[in-house]
């Protein structure tokens, strides 16, 4: 149960991470339409909630809350390190033809934000 809870936290933050324009583009190789972004975010929040339930089930009411926050930190850190340090492309879908032009322009709007 503890392990599932940790995995759930990782999934939650993976969804959060993939709902950012830049990482979505890099990892999944396609632009992120707004509706899909919303769906990703919703699923991520759901996973956070499920993680809370699992944490309480695994560790009881007192330690569950502490463990939940710990698990979320763990999930966030894991996904953060993965998204930023593991080179993209290895896990990417076969790139579409217009891929290079897109990724080249991906940085530009970001730096203006």
């Amino acid at each position, binding site marked *: 149960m*503890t392990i599932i809870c940790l995995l759930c936290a990782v999934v939650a933050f993976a969804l959060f*991470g993939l709902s950012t324009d830049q*990482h979505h583009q890099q990892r999944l190789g396609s632009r992120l339409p707004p509706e899909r972004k919303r769906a990703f975010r919703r699923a991520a929040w759901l996973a956070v909630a499920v993680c809370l339930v699992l944490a309480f089930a695994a560790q009881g009411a007192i330690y569950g809350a502490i463990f939940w926050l710990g698990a979320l*930190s763990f999930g966030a850190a894991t*996904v953060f390190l993965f998204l930023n340090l593991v080179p993209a492309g290895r896990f990417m879908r076969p790139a579409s033809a217009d891929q290079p032009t897109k990724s080249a322009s991906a940085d530009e709007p970001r730096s203006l934000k």
Partner: protein
Amino acid sequence: MSKSFRQSQSFLHTWSGLILGWMLFVIFVAGTVAFWREGLNRWMRPELDRIEQPYTVLAGAQRFLERKAPDAKSWFIAMPSERSPGAQVFWQPQPKPGKEQGRRGRRDNQSLIGADGTPTVARETRGGEFFYRFHFDLHYMPIIWARWLVGVAAMAMLIAILSGIVTHKKIFRDFFTLRRGKGQRSWLDGHNATAVLSLPFHLMITYTGLVTLMAMLMPWAVVANYTDQEKLFDRLFPHVEERERSGTAAPLVDIASVVRDAERRFGAPAGQIQVQEPGDAAALITVGRSQSSMLSSRAPSLTYSGVDGKLIWQSPLPGGASETAGAMIGLHSARFAGYGLRWLYFLCGVGGCLMVASGLVLWTVKRREKLPDPARPHLGFRVVEWLNVAVVAGFPFGIAAMLWANRLLPLTMKDRAQWEIHALFLAWALALCLATVLRAARAWAALLGATGALLAAIPVYNIAATERGLHATLAQGDFVLAGIDIALLVFGLAFLATARRVASHRPAPRRSRRREAAVPEAIAALEPAE
């Protein structure tokens, strides 16, 4: 939110973080290490076997104390468990009339009972206790000063965290962003990431850390309600009324049977055991519940008659305020945490160390760009850079030296435990000298590299020269000791890798002033503040 508010917060964040930042770093590192206090207590005494049968050890402790201090005023026994190196016992002799009773001399009145129930002949060391005490008592200075310093540093930390959230308000939106190899941007991203990834932990640990010192930092509630310190103490830590020694000798019951009964009533393991007036008809045995079994650090206790082993007193339920304080202190020290949660605490602590360190470095990175003449920076800049090297690289170097001293100092050396600690500070002083004579980049690389090599070599030495090498501990399923060795290896390699990157780093050519001025105002204002 108005811009000027954010700017004022930015100012607050920068300076509250900087001024006591080096001390915060040291406190954070020592505190993080102290999450493995019990593990280190065992790791630093590799001669000792793991405890398989706590009650055998407890019986051994009773036999030892009955022989060694039959007419003491009281005995204290830390209930052994498989996490502890043995049963730590100490005793308090009968007070001599007209002589002030102090905590001095405690060192001669203590012993460690090992797994076979006899006093151990382990190397003299403070073990993990050093890191625990150091993170709020510091060293080489009166405790009260140290605690004030630590308290002020913790308050500065809380200010820095809160103002940091305001300053870097983009941290939540840019949660997953790490721009690599981009100088100041990368440092800022790294600082934000380590801060925000375990933000709940940072807030919790800083706030509850202040709670542990609250009676000292804000004594007014106590002063207003209690004229007598003793009364306050009785209220906070209720205990059975002390008894006069009757003078009639009576054998003490088997402590183990009393502890078994107490554990049944607690429904949890026992922690501290105190015996008052052993060997007398008035003897009392008090058993406290283990702090590892509950969140609150204020554990309930039961008192038994030492002659027939009957329960005669139990601690009242704590009041709301006391329970809250106890829970917060418990949350801080994580004694309740099993290994899974303990690892999370530790990793969050490491994140905190990196946050403080990157914040300190960021201060110099940000200002280096703007220096009028980078070859000759002004005094303030030089001092900060110097302290950064000396503390951020120097303190881990000192810890590595201390761990080696634990392994290498001759076992019969006088004051050996103290010399282990001196080794830490001598190495740290050496780091300070290096930071003074070398250029900053060279000093960083040299110190980080040396720390990495020292840390990574310890597990190798353990395999070669002790019975608790990685192969042995893994084979025995002793994952605490194995985990410490593996962690040392990982940290050693990480330090080496960092040192390599620092050594091969070539500062990017300075951006020309003209280009910088050309950046439109609007964009500059939207960049993350710091």
